[in-house]
């Protein structure tokens, strides 16, 4: 129909032509995009554990170069679109983030997930002596802080990693979610039994983690090895001294999650050291900085005293049994950390540890 303000022509043929010109143009799809694939006809069969992320690394989809030149969000193996503006990824070298186990760890995290709200048997928690409840809540406060740093550090780096190494980005997404779950369950434990949150931790290691500027590998040293092994060992010892099935469940499951993070950290550092000149020495230097930060954190007596109350069963028991338990924990932590350092070919000399750590270093543990 002619518009009201259109000039009148009067002719029938003119009207038809005008109507045709104003009719919506018919869309004719060409489906040209169907020819845009670098490799078509891929059929990856599921295995016994299902169709896993790592199984998909076949043909061009499994080509993982040492340097990822694409600066866009182009998924690995897809056809790049011309003219896409660069995103500005900071981590584009495989050596800067890779671990061969990342895809499997991602699957493991997805398959072994748990939900604090419904899986933890909260109804098994019963009133504890006031000193013990204070200690549990203080330790939970510290662990909430650790989880918060995990979340911030991981998410702070994740968006800076290029899409060419999606296995790592996906694994770290699960690690961030694990940390959120730990934040949740320790907060719940602190607020479920008549207590409350306690004093914030001193946070020197937190700052080292969050202010790592030298790359993700540096953050891994602090976050997943130094803090990661410390936290993992803490979970082990807290599970041993759990007061009920709920605490046992929380610490036991958080331990499993943390073990995955540490595994990624170990495998990444091993890979980085094998592929980057001087990386081994850099990691050793970072550990030396980290040791100092940890020693200063541990000079603050709050965590030590709270753990001693838990391990000793009371303020009275903290003095002897509790401090002995704290010593066991610290020896376990340092023994594990030094063994892991040897595994990644960065042997540490216990004699050069800060005094606050050296007193707990395993006897006879020497650098290779």
């Amino acid at each position, binding site marked *: 129909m002619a518009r009201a303000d259109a000039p009148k022509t009067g002719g029938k043929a003119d009207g038809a032509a005008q109507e045709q010109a104003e009719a919506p143009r018919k869309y004719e799809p060409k489906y040209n995009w169907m020819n845009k694939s670098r490799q078509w006809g891929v059929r990856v069969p599921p295995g*016994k554990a299902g169709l896993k992320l790592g199984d998909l690394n076949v043909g061009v989809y499994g080509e993982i170069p040492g340097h990822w030149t694409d600066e866009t969000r182009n998924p690995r193996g897809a056809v790049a679109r011309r003219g896409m503006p660069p995103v500005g990824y900071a981590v584009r070298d495989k050596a800067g983030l890779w671990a061969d186990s990342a895809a499997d760890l991602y699957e493991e995290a997805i*398959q072994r997930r*748990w939900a604090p709200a419904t*899986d933890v048997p909260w109804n098994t928690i019963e009133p504890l002596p006031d000193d013990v409840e204070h200690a549990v809540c203080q330790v939970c406060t510290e662990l909430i802080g650790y989880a918060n740093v995990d979340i911030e550090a991981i998410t702070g780096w994740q968006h800076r990693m290029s899409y060419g190494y999606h296995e790592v980005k996906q694994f770290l997404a699960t690690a961030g979610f694990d940390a959120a779950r730990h934040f949740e369950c320790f907060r719940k434990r602190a607020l479920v039994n008549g207590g409350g949150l306690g004093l914030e931790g001193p946070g020197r290691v937190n700052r080292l983690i969050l202010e790592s500027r030298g790359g993700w590998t540096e953050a891994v040293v602090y976050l997943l090895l130094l803090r990661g092994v410390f936290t993992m060992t803490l979970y*082990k010892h807290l*599970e041993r001294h759990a007061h009920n099935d709920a605490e046992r469940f929380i610490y*036991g499951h958080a331990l*499993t999650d943390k073990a995955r993070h540490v595994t990624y950290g170990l495998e990444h550092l091993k890979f980085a050291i094998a592929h980057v000149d001087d990386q081994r020495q850099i990691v050793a230097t970072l550990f030396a900085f980290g040791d100092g930060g940890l020693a200063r954190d541990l000079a603050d007596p709050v965590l030590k005293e709270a753990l001693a109350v838990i391990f000793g069963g009371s303020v009275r028991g903290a003095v002897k049994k509790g401090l002995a338990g704290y010593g066991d924990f610290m020896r376990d932590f340092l023994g594990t950390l030094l063994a892991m350092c040897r*595994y990644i070919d960065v042997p540490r000399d216990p004699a050069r540890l800060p005094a606050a750590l050296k007193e707990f270093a395993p006897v006879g543990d020497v650098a290779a």
Partner: protein
Amino acid sequence: MAKALAFPSVAWFDAVRAVFNSDERYRGAGGGRCDCVVGLKIGEAVFVLAFEGVECVSAVAADDAALVDVDFFLAMSAEDWREMITNIAENDGADLHHTLNTLDLARDEGLAASRHGDQFREDLFFRYNQTLQFFFDASARVKTAVDNGKLVKL
């Protein structure tokens, strides 16, 4: 009435596997996929369990040399193993003093060990700790006789 199976024996582990593999509860709440080969040193006896996906796919008797090839192995005296199995049977799952983690920490030499020095494989003990706990907790539903013939679960 089911016959009591002697602990430790392949028949006993097979019965535990049957319970573990058929109970979907062990696949949620932090359980799930577990891929590892675990040695068990029970006094002088050695058994090897293989976990694939969400199942324990085999249990075989072996000798000490087999412990070199497993990802990690759990070693305790026969008496300590019996105490753990008995505790699980009596409590329908390990109590707070008999979890694998607690037993690991409670002994000077630990519970989990390896002979290959590969930290990645050794750490599977902690990554799959809950699944391994679920496996042994499943033994509470197996009529068990410890090796002196005493029933621990009727």
